[in-house]
């Protein structure tokens, strides 16, 4: 297997994520442009111009190129599973120079920047094992401004789903313009604290406009979109109709005594890209 070539593929995956926004997000932003007016419209217009320019010039759309985050689905029959973690880490170092990316990994104790976007436990990789011999890697570079608006609520089960909804709406109103709205909000409900946060983050991988397959949950997603947008916070917190492009909910069963709610916030730059690596090492960025 040609490891250098796979590394090149992962760099290409990262470049695509940093420079080209998925179509579902662009479509949602264009819809927002149609309904907004005044200052709000100028913000969406700048965003759309920026997306276009980034794609044409091959430059990262945002200077905050994020913490490099990957979700990997590994086919259990893929031959070199043990090499994947190292290849991703090496690709991050290479991408930092080649694309380039802003050096974004700082030691929390010394304040020293590691300068290559790697460090302790970073890049952050989530591994899932699946049938077959293909490896699927999704890159979700995650910016700091939106990440700072993440929230974990360990609610009292007695507040019920109404309490969960109120928590999400209140927190998104408090966040105001900070996470670069219009945002995509991922909500993980249930599990324990860590699982709720993880489900929230993972739900950001769903395309904008995709509704949960459970109709009750889908209706709650729609209700939350409406309630947050009715706040009037608007693009960049400068007022307007579009504060969120979407709300995605995922759930896990909970402990009888706990009702964890994890909120993961993603800025309008919902950067995602996916690649597949085949059994023989050949790859495609989708």
């Amino acid at each position, binding site marked *: 297997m040609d490891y250098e070539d796979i590394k090149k593929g992962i760099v290409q995956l990262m470049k695509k994520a940093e420079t080209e926004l998925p179509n579902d997000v662009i479509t949602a932003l264009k819809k927002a442009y149609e309904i907004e007016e005044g*200052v709000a419209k*100028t*913000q969406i217009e*700048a*965003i759309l*111009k*920026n997306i276009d*320019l*980034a794609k044409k*010039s091959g*430059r*990262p*759309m*945002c*200077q*905050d*190129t994020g913490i490099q985050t990957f979700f990997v689905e590994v086919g259990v029959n893929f031959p070199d599973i043990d090499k994947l973690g190292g290849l991703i880490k090496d690709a991050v170092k290479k991408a930092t120079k080649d694309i*380039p*990316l*802003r*050096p*974004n990994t*700082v030691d929390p104790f010394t*304040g020293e*920047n590691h*300068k290559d976007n790697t460090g302790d436990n970073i890049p952050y990789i989530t591994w899932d094992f699946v049938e077959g011999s293909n490896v699927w890697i999704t890159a979700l570079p995650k*910016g*700091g*401004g939106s990440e*700072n608006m993440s929230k974990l609520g360990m609610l009292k089960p007695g507040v019920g789903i109404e309490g969960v909804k109120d928590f999400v709406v209140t927190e998104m*109103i408090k966040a*105001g*313009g*900070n*996470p*670069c709205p219009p945002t995509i909000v991922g909500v993980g409900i249930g599990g324990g604290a860590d699982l709720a946060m993880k489900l929230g983050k993972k739900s950001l991988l769903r395309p904008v406009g995709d509704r949960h397959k459970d109709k009750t949950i889908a209706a709650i997603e729609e209700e939350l979109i409406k309630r947050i947008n009715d706040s*009037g*916070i*608007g*693009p*960049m*917190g*400068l*007022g307007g109709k579009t504060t969120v492009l979407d709300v995605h909910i995922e759930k896990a069963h909970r402990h009888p005594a706990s009702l964890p709610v994890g909120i993961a916030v993603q*800025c*309008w*730059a919902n950067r995602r890209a996916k690649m597949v690596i085949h059994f023989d090492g050949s790859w495609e960025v989708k």
Partner: protein
Amino acid sequence: MEYHFKLPVDSGEIEKLHVGDVIYITGKIFTARDEAHHMMLEKDKNNLPFDPSEMALYHCGPLMKKTDKGWQVVSAGPTTSSRMEIFEDEFIEKYGINIIIGKGGMGERTEKALQKHTGIYTAYTGGAGALAADKVEEVPSVYWLDELGMPEAVWIFKVKEFGPLVVAIDSHGRSIYREIKR
């Protein structure tokens, strides 16, 4: 209203501006985030290698690339301004800043300092890094790059028609953010 300014801008011009106006600026701006604010507040202002009072302050941690011709801006949108709220009133007073560029808004302390010292806070579209980079003509200098690293260092940008910048906090005590939250 829309205005086009060459920096520095005097108090008389700043006073004409109100929340909701849009401005474009030409001249020198400097970037400063958390670490740079902290560091510059501890420094003697008379020994600073540049004069902040002639420039606009940009809350930005840019993505830069070193080439044969020197530093080039790859992507340089604004960073979240609220992190600087704890320093900004003191910073405005010490360095005579009258135009701040950022995103997401700032709080009451900054509002009061802008009112007292006749300054404005303007919002640039968050995440519009490629668009912002396109308006930077030159990078004359960078300070404290080794100590602070690329995102936190102070970069001086020569910009042309940098904007649209929405006046979000004016020198008359009004703030778009406060009014929307209400």
